[in-house]
């Protein structure tokens, strides 16, 4: 199949990429950085975190760059004053939603949320913080889930379903009560479907799922989904 090339502008730079590429992927390919959290190369794009929002010239709405495909002549703006302000708000909301204490977190210095907060200059959280006290599930021989640190990006759910092919993880409830669950909301040790492949820990952007006793710098692997899927027989 021959694929068409599409030309567009991102922040004034002329770039051309293959048709079907998303704006975010096009930006990454060309070294333009658009902050993002729920997006992970290889996994379904959910457009959930809203960090990667961009403006399209001539359109009043904002678009999630991870899930919006490029089109010819498109002019993308990734760093307007409004977008910067909105990204800061999004990070602050995520930080305020649950108990995020970097200094005692296993992901300290290996955390995508922390890195983005630092990078975007989120020097404080204007919203009152929730101090959730969910029980940490460390029943599994080596996988631990601390839901107090979860930002509901669902990378773990997607990698388990789409790459490992097991779908041991999903979400329960909804809204601010949403939680990652294992099987029938069981403790992890009692899961009959989990294969202990630890892909969930590899893709978790924060310190919500991790391997006990292993430094996160070693566990984390942003490329895992892409690696497995690109080598899978079509």
């Amino acid at each position, binding site marked *: 199949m021959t694929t068409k090339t599409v030309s567009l502008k991102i922040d004034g730079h002329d770039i051309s990429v293959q048709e079907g590429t998303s704006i975010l992927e096009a930006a990454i390919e060309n070294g333009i950085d658009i902050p993002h959290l729920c997006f992970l190369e290889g996994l379904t794009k959910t457009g959930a975190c809203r960090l990667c929002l961009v403006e399209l010239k001539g359109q009043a709405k904002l678009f999630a760059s991870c899930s919006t495909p490029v089109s010819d002549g498109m002019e993308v703006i990734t760093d307007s004053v409004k977008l910067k302000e909105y990204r800061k708000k999004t990070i602050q909301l995520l930080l305020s939603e649950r108990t995020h204490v970097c200094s005692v977190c296993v992901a300290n210095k290996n955390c995508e949320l922390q890195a983005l907060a630092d990078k975007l200059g989120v020097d404080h959280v204007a919203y009152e913080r929730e101090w959730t006290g969910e029980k940490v599930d460390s029943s599994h021989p080596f996988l631990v889930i601390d839901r107090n640190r979860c930002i509901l990006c669902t990378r773990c759910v997607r990698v388990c*379903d789409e790459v490992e092919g*097991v*779908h*041991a*993880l*999903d*979400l*329960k*409830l*909804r809204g601010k009560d949403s939680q990652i*669950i*294992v*099987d*029938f*909301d069981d403790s992890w040790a009692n899961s*009959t*479907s989990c294969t202990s492949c630890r892909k969930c820990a590899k893709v978790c952007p924060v310190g919500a799922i991790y391997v006990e006793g292993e430094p996160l710098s070693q566990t984390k692997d942003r490329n895992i989904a892409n690696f497995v899927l690109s080598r899978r027989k079509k």
Partner: protein
Amino acid sequence: MLKEDNRKLMLEKAIKDHQYQASALLEILHKAQELYGYLNREILSFVASSLKLPPSHVYGVAAFYNYFRLKQPGEHVVTTCMGTACYVKGAEDIISAVEKEFNVKRGDSTADGKLSIFTTRCIGACAMAPSIVIDDEVVGKATKEIVIEKIKLLLGGKKTETS
């Protein structure tokens, strides 16, 4: 394991009628709740294996929708409509009064398991607001006195007149 009884047979039939389609999950859960009154782990597990769906998916769906109950409700169920029209006409006062009178919080059951109080988002009987559903009876233009009286009658074992 789910007990082998008529209800299970009927649930199996419903699953078969839907040709074991995964997309019929909501329909099947509706049927199961209709048969069993609520959805416990055994039921969900049975549905998951019948439809060949991952357990977490079935639980996630059941826990997403408000209509599905994962806990056993009380013997009698009082549901207050909290739609806009009912709210404007004082539904909140009624449910607060019921909570106080029977010492039970919304979404929960009394200690003896006789009475559960739920709220719902609009049953569509807005022109008769506020509306309260007591077991299967819709009480329109309700007041707290009428509702408490009706619940007392129910708990006293006497049947209220249904229309």
